[in-house]
């Protein structure tokens, strides 16, 4: 049944994500085409494209994962608590299967988005000379491999950040479902509360971690950045904890009151 749920969730996500990724990919395809037409890096047309491309890429790096995460939480609300629940909840599927299908789809689309954006990074290294292109690509890959610990830490921490935000929104929606009145407003308030509490515990956890594992020092480049090991551990534990609660709640307490 998970496969069937995934199929329908994939379609639902695709309706939103494909156009967004399409617009993003279209821009760098245009740049490649322009380069094939003889325009070079530094030409006015390419410069104009970069002026458009850079802000879009910046917004996309933050925006696309954020949209993915918010849409995942919206799908959860739709499937469990809104009108669509009258179709989805009577299906012969466990509630936890529905939750897993939604979260997995968010992860899949996050990975797809990341892959599209990474491919877009290759555009600046493109050159009409195949040998030059391969050299540029080689340099890029070499720098990624040499600094792989940091890049992997950044990637994994980014992924966990988006996932934990999505799960926190889902938890807020679940808690708000017990109330009458404006569920959007109540969900937002719950989300603020959950964010505040998780930040508090994050701070406490960091201090405890520093005290227990005192191998970290101020000189350690990994520690005082956002993408540090204790933060990764905390976000992983937070995400796992919320997910376990949502899975438990899905088959025991998630009433469709609307």
């Amino acid at each position, binding site marked *: 049944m998970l496969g069937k749920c995934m199929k329908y969730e994939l379609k639902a996500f695709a309706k939103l994500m494909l156009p967004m990724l399409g617009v993003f990919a279209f821009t760098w395809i245009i740049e490649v085409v322009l380069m094939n037409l003889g325009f070079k890096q530094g030409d006015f047309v390419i410069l104009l494209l970069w002026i458009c491309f850079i802000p879009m890429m910046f917004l996309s790096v933050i925006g696309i994962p954020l949209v993915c995460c918010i849409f995942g939480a919206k799908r959860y609300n739709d499937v469990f608590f809104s009108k669509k629940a009258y*179709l989805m909840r009577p299906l012969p599927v466990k509630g936890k299967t529905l939750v897993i299908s939604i979260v997995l789809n968010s992860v899949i689309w996050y990975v797809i988005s990341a892959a599209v954006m990474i491919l877009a990074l290759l555009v600046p290294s493109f050159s009409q000379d195949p040998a030059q292109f391969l050299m540029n690509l080689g340099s890029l890959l070499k720098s990624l491999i040499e600094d792989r610990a940091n890049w992997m830490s950044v990637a994994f921490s980014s992924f966990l950040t988006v996932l934990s935000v999505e799960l926190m929104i889902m938890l807020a929606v679940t808690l708000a479902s017990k109330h009458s009145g404006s569920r959007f407003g109540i969900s937002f308030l719950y989300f603020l509360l959950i964010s505040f509490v998780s930040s508090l515990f994050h701070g406490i956890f960091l201090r405890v971690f520093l005290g227990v594992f005192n191998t970290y020092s101020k000189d350690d480049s990994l520690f005082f950045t956002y993408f540090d090991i204790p933060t990764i551990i905390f976000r992983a534990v937070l995400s796992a904890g919320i997910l376990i609660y949502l899975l438990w709640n899905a088959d025991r307490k998630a009433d469709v009151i609307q």
Partner: protein
Amino acid sequence: MNDPILSARGLTKAYGSIPALNQLSIDIFKGRIVGLLGPNGSGKTTFIKLVAGLLFPNSGELAVGGMRIGPDTKRIVSYLPDRDYLPVSMRVNELLKLFGDFYDDFDRARAVDILSRLGIDFSQKFGTMSKGTRERVQLALTMSRQAELYLLDEPIAAVDPAARDYILRTVLQNYKEGSTVLISTHLIADVEPILDDVIMLQNGTLRLYGPADRIRADTGGSIDMLFREVYRC
């Protein structure tokens, strides 16, 4: 003795401090068309949603076919809510595919037959249909399942008399023989002719339950008259 398809013991459900069902105990038997009657707020929809798995009881027990409410009971229960519930962006052929994917007992040929007789365009989106057509599509999908228990929540509440006749005719012509149909309604006169058994709820408790013929014989009048008398304001 006929086995019950649906059993409730001490079933209680409250929305916060507001009780919707209070210690309801009942057995509904196989092969019966049962009217679930009561005024607004009596607990009819709450009971149906509990059986369909959209709500979880505060206490008590509920079983369908001897099984606790879950994927196995949903496999044999066909539920028609009291509202539009199908996604507005889905086309009729997509809805047929979805029902076929998830419900092993879905009879696609029957659904196609019912919808074709209604002249419905299978490529049309659900949201672009008229209200009456949407209700017919929902009913066709529900009754095209070969379920053991059909839950119809207010299927004739918001339609004209001609449509009511069509809906009741569709129910009678398409439900699986030997299965149970539980129809929740407050339009007693329309459904009374087809009912085998009658359940009357009031304030979340069981007021009356028995065969329709026996109730009519005991009271000397129709179920509709009894309803008006029992629930007189």
